[in-house]
């Protein structure tokens, strides 16, 4: 009888070990002559760069050139910068300019470069109950949403999009509160899903919206084109001074890679085929 139990355990052990032996055959990492950097780095980034698929193209190109492995953690910009402060991320790719400036001023980051931009959009149901469709003034549009008590979903998660939203409310001199103002506390994709389900308005970055629209969205762009809705992305190499284990060389190489030459060309080309326009505009692209 005891044999049976041990046989089960033995069987499970064998299965496990066979699986783990297989797992040790790693994905091939190509090699090439370029300045030597650490063999891996952790990139904390906003979800829009991953969810849009940009990083699936950008990261392999960088890995190939520098023969280093990039571990991408997609979270909100706020959490990404918090990971930088804790020393858990070596490089950041975020879109929260004011918070980035503060991050640099406090000495958490060593190098920061502008990478690309697109725009934020105010999206909402087709019926447009608040009647803001076609407005080009984001401040006036949000004010009208508040005046008409139209449902609006806030990310409320300290992401780049959330801090942009708060800055618009501030400009509108409105403190959003009430049953129409819904704080989801979730990522952009989840928030868009929620907006679809309950026919609400929300503020979204262009890249996530376009890549989401193809799949499941009945939302429409109601406000765009205000220069307040400008959405710049920056790359930061976290300073090695506070945590000597930071893989600074690799992080710096990554920041340079995406803000120059090949990285910029990849960003420029990304999304044209699938969405008819590029999802991000590189700041430093020369054909």
């Amino acid at each position, binding site marked *: 009888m*005891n044999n049976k139990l041990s046989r089960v355990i033995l069987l499970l052990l064998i299965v*496990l070990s066979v699986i783990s032996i297989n*797992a040790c055959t790693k994905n091939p990492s190509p090699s090439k002559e370029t300045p030597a950097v650490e063999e891996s780095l952790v990139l904390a980034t906003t*979800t829009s760069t991953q969810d849009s698929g940009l990083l699936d193209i950008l990261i392999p190109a960088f890995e190939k050139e520098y023969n280093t492995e990039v571990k991408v*953690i997609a979270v909100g910009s706020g959490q990404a910068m918090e990971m930088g402060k*804790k020393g858990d991320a070596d490089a950041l790719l975020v879109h929260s300019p004011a918070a980035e400036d503060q991050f640099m001023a406090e000495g958490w980051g060593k190098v920061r470069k502008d990478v690309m931009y697109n725009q934020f959009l105010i999206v909402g149901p087709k019926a447009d109950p608040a009647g803001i469709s076609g407005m080009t003034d984001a401040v006036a549009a949000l004010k009208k949403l508040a005046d008409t008590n139209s449902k609006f979903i806030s990310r409320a998660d300290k992401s780049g999009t959330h801090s942009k939203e708060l800055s618009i409310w501030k400009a509108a001199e409105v403190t959003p509160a009430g049953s129409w103002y819904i704080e989801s506390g979730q990522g952009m994709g*989840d928030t868009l899903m929620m907006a679809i389900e309950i026919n609400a308005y929300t503020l979204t970055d262009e890249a996530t919206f376009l890549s989401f629209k193809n799949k499941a969205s009945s939302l429409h762009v109601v406000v765009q084109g205000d220069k307040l809705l400008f959405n710049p992305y920056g790359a930061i190499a976290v300073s090695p001074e506070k945590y000597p284990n930071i893989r600074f060389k690799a992080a710096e190489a990554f920041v340079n890679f995406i803000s120059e030459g090949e990285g910029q060309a990849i960003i420029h080309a990304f999304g044209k085929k699938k969405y008819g326009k590029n999802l991000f505009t590189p700041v430093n692209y020369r054909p």
Partner: protein
Amino acid sequence: MDIWHSIVEYKEEILTIVRLSLIVSGTATLFSTLIALPLGTIIGLKDFLGRRLILRIVYTLMALPPVLAGLIVYLIFSRSGPLGNLELLFTPTIMIIAQTLLVTPIITGLVVAAIAGKEGIIYDHALSLGANQMQAYFTVIKEARTNIIASIMTGFGRAFAEVGAVMLVGGNIRYTTRVLTTSIVMETRQGNFAMGIALGLILLIISFAVSTLVLMNNDQFSKT
């Protein structure tokens, strides 16, 4: 159909994900069992000072939210935390640690329940027949094995299905720490609902296969 296309196209990657899910949750369950089986047996059989308190703690920890377990492990192994220089964050190893923390109380609690009831009689009986204490323990474990296996399977199910802890400490890194549950979250977030469902079905099928494997080798579960 579109979804079959995607599955075939990403076959290799999905296999990597499935493999990692099994390794992480399987190893975590194994470690948890190694801790929980002796611990649960002793708590179940022995009467000692503080036993009720320990039991209460164990049962409280059975309700430990995965994301809280993840956060605690994250803070300990963060570069700014006490064990930061081990550089374990965002590796499969730390995912195993987090899930072990999560699963050990569950298996312990269930093993206690499996043994505490009628098995005390068997323990006394074994002792009276001249078994030493070690032998008596093993006799009890042997007699309660059906319930113990069910406890271990419950623990494995919890580990295999949880997402909060592995998402936080593993980071859902492609090819490295992405497991079935974290990919489901990611696909959903991107609006790829069909892919999310497909991955969920894969998870359930594997769960079915694992339990079949286990039950096949234990005749006690069959009624005859």
